């Protein structure tokens, strides 16, 4: 598989935000291409951050040799465990290097991601195009394993990325193939009903207190440990409070346990105004907008569905 990543944009000409997919066959091939991409950036004095799997970090490091110390690495298995935590990391990297051309590599989707996680990864990839202003000199490449991933996943990836195979072709400031107007569309993707073997408890809360109590009872009963119960209770409370404050209250809540996960769902009439809610670090001041942010940090996965005038938020806790 050949690729001309090192060519194209860069050099003296400032480029805007560019979000490419890199479709690779083997891990070694991917490591080679990533190293080449990063090396080309380093040669132009561009800071770089690669968020990939730990084994891949090692492969890229060894290929970069002495240059490896000039690249920042982060373990995607940790950072991207909940995909909603990835954008804040890029944001922080961009803030730190404001005004400079930078490069990034992020591989949020790997074979073995649960279906629920996959949906959130795809939303994440869509939102990246929204989160980064078009004029930001940031070249981001997302590796996708064509040999391991489902063809449908690859098809989706093509929709929100420029294809790195096309080489130096530059999409201008157009942030990959992402369509700005439809950036709320990813949240409309249907959430699957709990599996038939799941134990589902319909909470029908009459107050926030009631909701917290129900969540805490069910979580304790299914064996979530103490501090994680408190985290889930707090996250649920904040999401439900958001529904009351910004929507028209809660229309329902339920909690279930399936495949080693506890999922708490809160539902209410309303619409999603800010697709990046929960992915922007709140300022340390007293402003609002912390509900989803907090949920993203307390829970292993947060899913949001906005369609037909309803918002559904699901908070996942892994049962360890």
């Amino acid at each position, binding site marked *: 598989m050949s690729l001309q990543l090192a060519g194209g944009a860069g050099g003296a000409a400032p480029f805007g935000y560019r979000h490419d997919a890199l479709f690779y066959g083997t891990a070694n091939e991917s490591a080679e291409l990533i190293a080449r991409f990063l090396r080309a950036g380093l040669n132009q004095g561009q800071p770089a951050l690669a968020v990939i799997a730990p084994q891949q970090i090692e492969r890229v490091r060894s290929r970069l040799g002495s240059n490896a110390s000039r690249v920042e690495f982060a373990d995607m298995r940790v950072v991207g465990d909940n995909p909603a935590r990835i954008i804040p990391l890029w944001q922080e990297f961009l803030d730190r290097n404001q005004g400079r051309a930078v490069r990034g590599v992020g591989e949020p989707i790997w074979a073995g991601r649960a279906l629920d996680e996959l949906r959130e990864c795809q939303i994440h990839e869509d939102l990246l195009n929204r989160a980064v202003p078009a004029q930001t000199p940031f070249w981001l490449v997302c590796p996708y394993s064509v040999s391991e991933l489902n063809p449908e996943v690859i098809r989706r990836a093509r929709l929100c990325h420029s294809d790195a195979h096309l080489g130096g072709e530059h999409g201008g400031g157009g942030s990959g193939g992402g369509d700005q107007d439809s950036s709320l569309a990813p949240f409309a993707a249907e959430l699957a009903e709990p599996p038939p073997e799941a134990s*589902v*408890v319909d909470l029908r809360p009459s107050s926030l207190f009631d909701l*917290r*109590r129900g969540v805490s*009872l069910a979580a304790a009963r299914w064996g979530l440990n103490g501090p994680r119960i408190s985290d889930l*209770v707090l996250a649920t*409370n904040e999401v439900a409070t958001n529904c009351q404050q910004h929507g028209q209250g809660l229309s329902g809540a339920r909690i279930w346990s399936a495949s080693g996960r506890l999922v708490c769902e809160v539902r209410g009439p309303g619409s999603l105004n800010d697709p990046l809610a929960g992915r922007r670090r709140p300022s*340390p001041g*007293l402003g609002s907008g912390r509900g989803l942010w907090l949920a993203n940090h307390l829970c292993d996965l947060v899913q949001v569905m906005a369609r037909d005038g309803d918002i559904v938020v699901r908070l996942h806790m892994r049962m360890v």
Partner: protein
Amino acid sequence: MTEVIRSPYAQPARESRAFPAEDQGLNASGSAQSPAVDRCPYPRPFDPGFRRCPNFHPVHVLSADSNNSGLNPYLACSHLAQGRNERGGYYASCELGGPRERAELAARITPARLDTERTLLEGLAAVSESAREAVVAAALASEATDGASAQSELGAAIESFATQNRHRLQSLGIAPDRFARAFAEWTKARQMPLARLGRMVQETGSDPLRGLWIRLASALEEGEASAGEAAGRAIDCTTTASSPGDAGLEIEAAANRVRLRGQIDRDAWEQLSGLAVMAAALDGDLILDLGGVSFCDVGGLRILLALAEARRERGALILESVPEELARALPALGWNDGSMASAS
């Protein structure tokens, strides 16, 4: 509508139809195995007065045989579920888990409370037995009229029981009328004519009153709160909450020390803001003791931080005993120790 899904039956084989066929692949291995950890270790059906298991939650089951003749009521436990081993065999499992989980749960609920619950469940079973039998008989005979009267008789028995035992119920945090209402809700939720109940009994051998009994047991366990009602056991496991009475917020002020008790959520923001307005005008350091606060949401914390900011000139705001889960959430909120320190 989703209901709590659980199988409380002592005789799992009879219930097998209610469960989806499991992955046959699991049955392939014929290897010997050790008994599952969640296997119920006690002989079933349970003897009247059974007390050996601290978590025992009696459910009186009325059933009929294949000829629709009533069988003697037997005693099951609402925690009994149907486990399935690797070879596809059934065993009676405890949905609370293994011995360790069971012991932990019993300790959390407290033996006294469990005992009150058992007394109530057994008392209820005794006073309503004839009425329940009448309902089953009517259902089996598909006699709608008799069924309706049997049903209302049962409702009356339950209601009078709730009145007589109101103090016991209240000690569990359950309003007596709430308890009686469980019956009405159950019959309404089923919306099942007795004739159909009768057919169901004939076809599956299942007890039409099983659902009612579970529901009443749930009402007992879950007290007032409707979310808790669905969620299951009356375990007070909100980290530090001691009783359902912890809803709402109590404020107790003495000199420059304010003690807060209860839970701070959106419903308490106004109250807390009121306190903040008064406290902002106080001179000197102000201590807010959050030790009695079993829950504080982000909005509540925001009000407290705004108060710290507002009275910066007058003195410090010292937060004592911040609830643990909130303290853990602070860094994620951008309020790390540093900004807390500057706020206090």
